[in-house]
Each structure stands twice: as C-alpha cells, then as structure tokens.
C-alpha cells in the first residue's frame, strides 16, 4: 500500500495531479447541476409572476 502511495518517489506530484483532475471533473458536474437548478427556479418564478 505504501509503495502504491509513493509511486516510485513521484507520489507527491502524482496524487495532487489526480486530485486536481478528478476534482475539476466533480466540481464541473456540481456547478452544472446547480446552474440547472437555479435556472429552473428562475423560470418558475417568472411563470408565477406572469400569472
């Protein structure tokens, strides 16, 4: 397990790299979903106001 984390000495570069990559992936998904939620909310509000 320790060798896995160490990655032949490159661990301190490799894991942050993966963290950054996967982090951005997850972040963008969350941002997109929150943007959709906000858009739905805004649309509902507009509908209510116009009725």
């Amino acid at each position: 397990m320790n060798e896995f984390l160490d990655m032949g000495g490159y661990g301190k570069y490799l894991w942050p790299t993966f963290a950054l990559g996967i982090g951005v992936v997850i972040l963008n998904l969350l941002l997109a979903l929150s943007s959709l939620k906000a858009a739905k909310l805004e649309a509902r509000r507009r509908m209510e106001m116009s009725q």
Partner: protein
Amino acid sequence: MATWTWFHRLASPPHVYAFARRWTPWFGGFAAVAIVVALYGGLVMAPPDYQQKDAFRMVYVHAPTAWLSLMIYTTMAVAAAVGLIWRMKVAHAAAAACAPVGAWMTVAALGTGMLYGKPMWGTYWVWDPRLTAELVLLFLYFGYMGLRAGIEDPVKADKASAVLAVVGVINVPIIKFSVEWWNSLHQTATVMQMGKPKMDFDMLWPLLLMLLGFLLYFITVLLIRLRAELLRRERNASWVREVLA
C-alpha cells in the same frame, strides 16, 4: 426528408431539452464507469514506464484534460459558427454551455501539466509554444465569457461572442501541431500517430478509455448546462411550463 425533420428537431428548444433530459443519466453513467475502470487500469494495472517510471501515470489525467480543453473549444466554435450562419438559438445556447467546462478543463490541463512537468523537466513552467498557446486558450475562454457577460442584449451577446470563438479557433491547431512545428520541450504525439501507436497496449488501453470517459463526461455536463441555458433563454414559452410542471 427525414434529415430535414432531424435538423428541425435539432433547432427546436423543447425537443433538444427533452433529448438532453432523457440521455443525461446514460452518458453520465457510462462516463463514470469508463473513468473508474480507466483509473484502475492506469494506476494499478499498467506497468511503470521505462523512462518515466511511475510518473508517466499522470498522463492519464493530463492528456484527457488537455485533449478536452481543445475539443470543447472546437465544439464551442463550431456551435457558434452554426448559430451565426443559420441563426439557431440552440446553437448559441450550446456554445455558451461549453465555455465554463472548457475553461475548467484548460485550468486542469495547465495545472496537471505543471505537476507533471516538475519531475520530468525540472521546472513547473516553460514558455514553449504549446504551453503558451494553451494559456492563450484559457484567456480566450475568459474573453468569451467576459464578452457574453459584458453585453446587455442577449442576441448581440450571442453573436459577438460567437465571432470571438470563431476567430480564436486558430489557436487550436497551433496547440495541436506546435510540438511538431517547433523544437519544444513538450512531448510529441505518442498515440495519434499514423500506424502503430508508440505506447504499449497495457499502457494504452486505460488512456483510450479515459479519453472516452472524459468525452462522455463532457457530453453529460454539456447536456445539463444546455438545459439550463435553454430554460433561461426561453422566458415564458409554453413548453417551459410543461417541463416544470
């Protein structure tokens, strides 16, 4: 005649919205599976590289983010061009949806590149053509989003940012081919070569699967953001009421 119907459907916001809503979970699911399997393949199963040892594994994150940063910009430019030429609202919406994801991917590409570069080249950054052009790509994304935000009228914002996207697309081939044209520190293409790829199969398949996974992931996020864009643009259209009910 069937193609004409398809084209009409493509231009119609309610149809596109329904399509996006239906297919998002599928694209998302497959993307997740592909990425997880590719991660395992790249981190655990692939043997260490002869020269780069275990450090080469960073390619499994760096290459997809970089490739995606280019692919998304190209998609954005194409959507923008379609929007300009055929005046399709949906196309403009798609271009707008691409921008934030593309910008983040560029940030990730630059960041992972810096972390990859330090152990390999001894430095976090070097002003070589590919890296500089990729940084320029990030500025182009920012410019695109800034221009959209800066123009009040939505139609004008669509068109102006579309012009910018199209003008800036020249940067993409520069990034892609800069490593061939100039003496560059950055590695030349190892996968997309005519004929046999230079990589071992054991190392190659996780990379290809990662690329596929990221592509599916982009489509997922694009569909979600596209839905949001369509809702924002369509104001009080009746199809919006039906969708939200």
